[in-house]
């Protein structure tokens, strides 16, 4: 199985579990998506910060609409699985859905980051301290376990 990794601006490190989930030596790609940056109000200073981070990561960078480019890049790499760091960003979630539609033969899998806390069930998110009262014990342990 040939893999390809799509790194986005919420997961810019090589220690992200998405790399461990992929076959060794899998290429990682970042798409400089000006439309998504504009919609997300990503200012010039943040763009520079992201660019500095990408320069250090030494990964492939392409410019355009990620939802359009990624099916092409998956094909160019001969991949049949696209791995993406999981994100709560609706714009990224929407692009993943579009990519899935464009290439139904390719598996698109989201990989969660290392957990901060381990909770037996979904916490009450109505107020922070309701969450914290459930999360505190785990949060104060190494690896949250």
């Amino acid at each position, binding site marked *: 199985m040939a893999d390809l990794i799509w790194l986005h*601006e*919420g*997961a*810019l*490190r*090589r*220690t*992200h579990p998405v790399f461990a989930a992929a076959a060794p030596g899998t290429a990682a790609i970042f798409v400089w998506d000006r439309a998504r940056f504009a919609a*997300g*109000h*990503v*200012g010039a*200073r*943040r763009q*520079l*910060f*992201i*660019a*500095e*981070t*990408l*320069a*250090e*990561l030494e990964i492939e960078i392409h410019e355009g609409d990620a939802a359009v480019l990624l099916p092409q890049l998956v094909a160019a790499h001969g991949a049949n699985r696209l791995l993406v*760091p999981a994100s*709560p*960003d*609706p714009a990224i979630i929407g692009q993943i859905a579009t990519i899935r539609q464009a290439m139904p033969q390719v598996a698109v899998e989201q990989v969660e*980051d*290392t*957990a*901060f*806390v381990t909770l037996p069930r*979904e*916490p009450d*998110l109505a107020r*922070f301290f309701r*969450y*914290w009262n459930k*999360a*505190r014990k785990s*949060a*104060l*342990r*190494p*690896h*949250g376990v």
Partner: protein
Amino acid sequence: MTALVGEAAAADETASLKGGRMAAEKALAAIDPIAYAASRNHLDGAVTRLSPYLRHGILSLDEVRNHALASVADPRQAEKFIQELAWRDYWQRIYLVHPDRIWNDVESYKTGFEASEYDSELPADAVDGRTGVACIDQFIAMLYETGYLHNHARMYLAAYVVHWRRVRWQAGAVWFLEHLLDADPASNNLSWQWVASTFSKKPYIFNLDNVAKYTGHDINTRMADNRVLALSYERLGELLFPNLEPAHG
């Protein structure tokens, strides 16, 4: 002159916030959870400035927490620091489960005003950093010059925009997203909602005494230069929220 030197030094320190894992690891190695707990509320306190690295996943919450725990003898010494990390985890969970809450009022304003009574645009003088309220203008200058603000400065600016200028929190949230290095829709917007009272039990306000308490000499807290803030909380409540019943007891 001392104030100007202090400002320049602070700007330089923040201007050195570079992207990349190497810079992130350097910042992580410098954290002191015990000093953080003691001084984090002060603008010159031992804050970590890790937020841009966490925002972009250059560091994970897990590894930062693990590093903090390894640097103290007892986990409780790192609790305040880890609790602040937990805020990010909390905001991200809301973002995933309730993405509609990022740009919409979670609850009604508890200010005595309807949402429709708030302006939808930032006033030009705030955008220009020329409100005439000295400390507010300094915080706006910091935002533009460094892309970073201490949490208290963020709360002061947010409260000033929403409650003193009666502007919808969404306008301020966009303003911060465009300029902050750690701009995150969940952390940013839900914090604005917390200040506005659309995601809290009451509006957050502050006064000049509070600014003076938590800022150093670099910030102008002279009464003559900050008239609209130089009032008691009781008087501010009357002026900013005239439709509310006065609090008793």
